[in-house]
């Protein structure tokens, strides 16, 4: 109740004409940097930062966070239209978003993505509003073993055993982990697997790999099939946007589940990327009918987007209350906070209630502004697909390489993106799943660090992973999720072999369905 009063006060601070104007400007700039290759929220925010030095902190943070929301929305746009994720957290959106665009349903896919992202973001802010005090305390209970358990949980929920070719899944996943180990090792302070190449100091960048595997790999495949974007002749009308808005209630289960996953991953240190993968994985696993995932199923867009934004917004809270930035963008914003003379930390809520609650209120308003603005741009973006492939194809190639270069301004990354493009093409044709590789690259080094920190703390004893109720619960849940498909498989197998006495033909179908837990 006290929080609600504070929030009302916050609305009083945030809802001025000047602030609303800042939100619109911030969101529009954010969409621009999100859509343009090689620019992400961190660039945009650090560029605007000097402008905010002379502003009052509330206005400054409203401008910067609005830009952040805009950039997150913009990142999903390129995932859906070109299979190039603008932000790491929108990788999972490509799985079904891009197929939808290819089928001429770009407007629907974009609208779905923006609406569910808006829903997720609001869920995250509501959580912050109601539980701010509790969340800040809860986050303090996480140490390395808990971190590891959370990463393990995210992984287990996305990748199950089974599937058409387990060995290919294993190769793909382990390659992802191996790429993640390249570069400076936090725990020992030494360089690993760089083989003396300075180019590998910074490791194999996740974004470069994704640009190659998804963007370039997919383009080569499209060329080989002699296809053009099938969306070219699709009619684009604002009416599709409204039709999609009307269809949203149909996905209430997905929205609710994904919001919960997102909020959970946001306040625990899992982060938006892990949240979106986890949400996609669970959506697929709980779906009664698993057909169609990866081929343009609306839930495949709704789930990762909701979870991504729920996690992104709810992660703001630990950042403010603990002073630990959850992402590069958050880190830049925190730098700003200090320049404005504010110290992130538990006392911020007590010392500067105007700032904190003004920010929270602006998150409600900013996200609503962002959804409205971004929906208005949908027909425009969908129209990009009308450009002939002979022009847009090569332009996407250029966009991919600009994106790869700007990750760390390294020429080497251009070659790396090219190589990953080739690998992506061959892997897709030979049915090696790519998603486990990507997820392993995202979580690999964090999980390894957390594991080894835990081992240092426990002097090498694995018992630390069930040393308190929190970590025990997380570990148990992760193991359950990991082994779930095996249990399901065994159950189906028993049932099928019983049934096979009567109907021998049913065995295959049942087994296929049971092993559907494995991702693409």
């Amino acid at each position, binding site marked *: 109740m006290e929080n609600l009063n504070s929030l009302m006060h916050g609305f009083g601070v945030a809802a001025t004409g000047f602030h609303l104007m800042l939100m619109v400007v911030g969101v529009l700039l954010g969409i621009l*940097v999100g859509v*343009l290759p*090689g*620019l992400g929220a961190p*660039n945009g925010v650090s*560029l605007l930062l000097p402008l905010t030095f002379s502003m009052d902190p509330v206005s400054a943070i409203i401008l910067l966070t609005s830009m952040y929301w805009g950039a997150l929305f913009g990142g999903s746009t390129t995932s859906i239209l070109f299979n190039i994720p603008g932000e790491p957290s929108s990788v999972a959106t490509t799985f079904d978003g891009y197929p939808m665009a290819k089928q001429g349903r770009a407007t629907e896919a974009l609208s779905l993505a923006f609406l569910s992202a808006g829903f997720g973001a609001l869920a995250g802010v509501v959580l912050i509003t109601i539980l701010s005090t509790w969340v800040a305390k809860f986050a303090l209970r996480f140490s390395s073993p808990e971190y590891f358990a959370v990463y393990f949980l995210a992984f287990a929920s996305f990748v199950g055993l089974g599937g058409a*070719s387990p*060995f*290919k899944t*294993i*190769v793909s996943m*382990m*390659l992802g*982990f*191996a790429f993640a*180990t390249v570069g400076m*090792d936090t725990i*020992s302070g*030494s360089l*690993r*697997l760089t*083989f003396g190449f300075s180019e590998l100091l910074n490791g194999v960048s996740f974004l470069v790999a994704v640009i190659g595997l998804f963007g*370039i790999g997919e*383009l*080569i495949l499209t*060329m*080989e*099939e*002699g296809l053009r974007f099938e969306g070219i002749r699709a009619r684009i009308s604002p009416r599709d946007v409204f039709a999609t808005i009307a269809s949203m209630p149909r996905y209430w289960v997905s929205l609710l589940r994904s919001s919960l996953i997102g909020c959970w991953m946001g306040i625990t240190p899992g982060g938006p990327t892990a949240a979106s993968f986890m949400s996609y994985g669970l959506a697929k696993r709980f779906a009664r009918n698993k057909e169609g995932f990866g081929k343009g199923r609306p839930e495949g867009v709704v789930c990762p987007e909701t979870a991504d934004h729920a996690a992104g917004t709810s992660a703001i809270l630990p950042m403010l209350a603990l002073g630990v930035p959850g992402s590069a963008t958050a880190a830049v914003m925190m730098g700003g906070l200090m320049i404005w003379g504010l110290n992130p930390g538990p006392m911020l809520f007590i010392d500067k209630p105007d700032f904190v609650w003004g920010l929270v209120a602006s998150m409600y308003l900013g996200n609503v502004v962002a959804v409205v603005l971004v929906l208005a741009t949908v027909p425009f973006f969908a129209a990009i697909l009308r450009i*002939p492939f*002979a*022009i847009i*194809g*090569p332009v996407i*190639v*250029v966009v991919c*390489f*600009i994106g790869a*270069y*700007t990750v760390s*301004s390294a*020429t080497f990354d*251009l070659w790396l993106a*090219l190589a990953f493009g*080739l690998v992506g093409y*061959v*892997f*897709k*044709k*030979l049915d*090696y799943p790519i998603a486990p590789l990507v997820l392993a690259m995202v979580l690999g080094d964090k999980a*390894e660090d957390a*594991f*080894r920190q*835990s*081992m*240092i703390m426990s*002097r*090498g004893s694995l018992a630390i992973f069930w040393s308190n109720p929190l970590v025990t619960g997380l570990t148990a849940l992760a193991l359950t999720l990991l082994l779930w498909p095996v249990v399901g498989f065994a159950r189906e197998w028993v049932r099928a072999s019983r049934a096979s006495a009567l109907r021998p033909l049913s065995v295959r179908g049942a087994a296929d369905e049971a092993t559907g837990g494995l991702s*693409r």
Partner: protein
Amino acid sequence: MTHTTPETPAPALVSRRAAEVAAALFTGALGATVVVGAREYGVGWDSAGPQPGAFPFYLGLIIVAASLANLVRGVLAGAGGAFVDRDQARQVLAFFGPIVAFVVLTVTLGLYVGAALYLFGVMLVQGKYRWWIALLVSMGVSVFFFVVLERWFQVPLLKGPLEAALGIY
């Protein structure tokens, strides 16, 4: 991901089996590299938990083992149709070749010049556009990115001799 084969399949240039074997050998080689590289850092388990090389070492071993399994399965699976036929290979090379050229040009001449040349060439040769349309589009795209990235957002991209000659950078 299934790929529909054409009604009358063109002669296979690379068989599926050959591609499977090649892919397995490639991943196996990557795995072996990781194993060799990791051995330098200690692969044991001491009082501070696993040593720096342990995690990559075992990853490498698993990659090698799984690649071997894929290799065996690939060989046993039979020819299994075409990985790419002649027509597809031509399409892919026609697309991929210019990309490689683009990267080479970019590394030597900078990203803006490389991108303009690449777009111009592809539109002219493959898109069969008239030269002045190709020129306009390719220059337009490069200038657009230059203005947005370098001027507005101050994100420097790779630049070559031309930018230096113009005194822009």
